[in-house]
């Protein structure tokens, strides 16, 4: 009863819940929800909510724990048998509030992203990692609240949290134990590395256990930040740093087999990944306008099929098939400009020069722009294709581009 009274009347770690609601809501609605229909990307995107909540959670828990150690609260809460419980209560309450909010927010993500059985286990692992990171920073706040004096403790916790998240939470070729995702581009062609997540969870469990052990000792030890408390934590930090140097431990890895596309229509057929099905109708409409606007001899040059490609994915090896990349802005705006479609039709996907380290020559860009403009003009009804000479010029230039001759010196 005393604990309940304490939690409702004195503690304020529960504020992490309402604040997490605001942060999660902002994250959910940010940039037009580009992750829709893409379940794995949606759960990854939700990780940004964790990133945003962590500093506030750690700061609140640190302040709450620090105040628990002040004289007036000690009288209320720190009776001998329950000392450790009272010290850790802010962390537990803060973690529960933020964690429950995060889990609740996964429901609208899932509803908008249509989960499938194939990626359900990956998404579950991602969520477990999210919760583990929230828990880690809750106990970190608890430790700082016990070890650092007020009012410094919450500020140190709130400032240190994003720094640690940035330092040890980004996939940059090093093992990042606090990586919660937050990708701003589709995860198509990538999959969660389960080895990474398992090592991440074990690491975070050790972190949480060490910090809990440090905090739950008698409070004067922690308050004085004695060597007995600091030594294992410093050792833990060193281990984390060494672990971070582990090579070949990326959170996401390339899938072994490319996911299947779904095709619709003909002349040209539009083949997109199911996660991006919302773009098919507009691409098809764009393509029809172009194909119907150009003369028959030009239409025969154009690809008979458009197949979606994700960055880093394979390209079609047949000239009659064109790849199609949905650009990042389209995910936000939900709109694909007809110029993007025309550009995809004239891009020589089979030419290795466009994927090389060195940029293609300027004359390639000029040619691609000219061809695109001709197709756009035809789609708008203002074509110059009535003139047979222009048709021949277009055909020659198009063939030069598609056959990679444009890249020859």
């Amino acid at each position, binding site marked *: 009863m005393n604990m309940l009274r304490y939690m409702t009347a004195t503690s304020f770690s529960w504020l992490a819940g309402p604040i997490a609601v605001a942060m999660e809501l902002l994250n959910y609605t940010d*940039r037009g929800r580009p992750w829709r229909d893409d379940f794995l990307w949606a759960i990854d995107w939700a990780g940004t909510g964790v990133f945003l909540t962590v500093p*506030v959670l750690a700061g*609140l828990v640190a302040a709450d724990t620090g105040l628990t150690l002040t004289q007036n609260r000690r009288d209320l809460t720190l009776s001998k048998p329950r000392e450790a419980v009272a010290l850790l209560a802010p962390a537990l309450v803060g973690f529960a509030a933020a964690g429950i909010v995060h889990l609740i927010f996964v429901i609208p993500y899932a509803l908008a992203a249509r989960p499938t059985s194939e990626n359900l286990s990956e998404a579950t692992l991602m969520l477990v990692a999210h919760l583990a990171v929230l828990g880690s920073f809750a106990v970190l706040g608890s430790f700082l609240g016990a070890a650092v004096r007020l009012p410094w403790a919450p500020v140190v916790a709130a400032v240190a949290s994003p720094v640690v998240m*940035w330092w040890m939470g980004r996939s940059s070729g090093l093992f990042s134990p606090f990586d919660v995702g937050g990708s701003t581009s589709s995860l198509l062609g990538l999959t969660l590395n389960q080895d990474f997540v398992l090592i991440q969870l074990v690491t975070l469990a050790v972190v949480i256990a060490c910090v809990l052990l440090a905090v739950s000792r008698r409070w004067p030890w922690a308050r004085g930040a004695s060597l007995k408390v600091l030594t294992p934590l410093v050792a833990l930090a060193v281990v984390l740093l060494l672990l971070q140097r582990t090579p070949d431990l990326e959170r996401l890895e390339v899938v072994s087999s490319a996911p299947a596309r779904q095709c619709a229509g003909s002349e040209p057929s539009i083949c997109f990944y199911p996660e991006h099905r919302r773009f098919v109708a507009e691409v098809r409409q764009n393509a029809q306008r172009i194909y119907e606007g150009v003369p028959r001899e030009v239409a025969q040059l154009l690809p008979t099929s458009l197949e979606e490609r994700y960055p880093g994915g394979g390209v079609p090896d047949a000239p009659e098939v064109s790849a199609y990349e949905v650009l990042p802005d389209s995910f*936000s705006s939900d709109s694909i400009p007809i110029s993007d479609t025309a550009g995809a039709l004239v891009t020589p996907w089979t030419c290795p020069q466009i994927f090389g380290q060195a940029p293609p020559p300027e004359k390639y860009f000029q040619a691609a722009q000219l061809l695109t403009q001709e197709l756009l003009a035809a789609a708008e009804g203002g074509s110059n294709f009535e003139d047979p000479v222009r048709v021949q010029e277009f055909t020659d230039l198009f063939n030069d581009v598609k056959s990679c001759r444009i890249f020859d010196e």
Partner: protein
Amino acid sequence: MVAHGARFARSWAAVHEGLNLASGVGIVAVMSLVLAQSSLSSFLIVDFAQALPVRLLIPVLAAFLIGFNLLYTAGNVASAAPRLLRWWRVVWLLMLVATYAAAANAGCLVAACQPSLVTRNLVLFAALTALGSTLLGPSLGWLPLMLYGMTFLFFGQRSFGAPGDVVRGWAIPMQSDLNPVAVTTCVGIFLAATVTYGLWGSAEPGSRPFSLKRRVP
């Protein structure tokens, strides 16, 4: 009045916050210079190739330090010249902001940043800190600044473009031009925060959030 003024001056000179202030100024000045010359490429969506570190992170750091200095309010003044306490708080806040703005602007001596933008952001962040300190107390005074800071850092842009390209109206610190509306908003919030802090001071340590009843004199 003269006696009050003399006691006020003596109290001012004896204020122990001078040490905090000096150390804070040193930290901000050094960090300004370090960040101004840093070669970091990016942090999350923030492009360090721009002058954003000095414009953004240094004002945030300065505002946190201002918050600490606000907490140590004038015990000496309260006993020596209680009638002047409210004015003392206002002067103290203004002096802190002016001093830290000067230190933060030191970075602009070596970096391509505009002092006016650094000052604008510092004024806004200091106002948030003062409001947080007044309304939430010393333990949670950092909360408004942290919330606003994280919010504009992540959601201040309207698109996936480079920072500074398309910025939302409320993300004033991300704006790279001196928009009059933004400046007026910052100054308005700062004036409101100054008046609020002058009238009530910092909430009592340990008081519940949003409680304005118990105050440290």
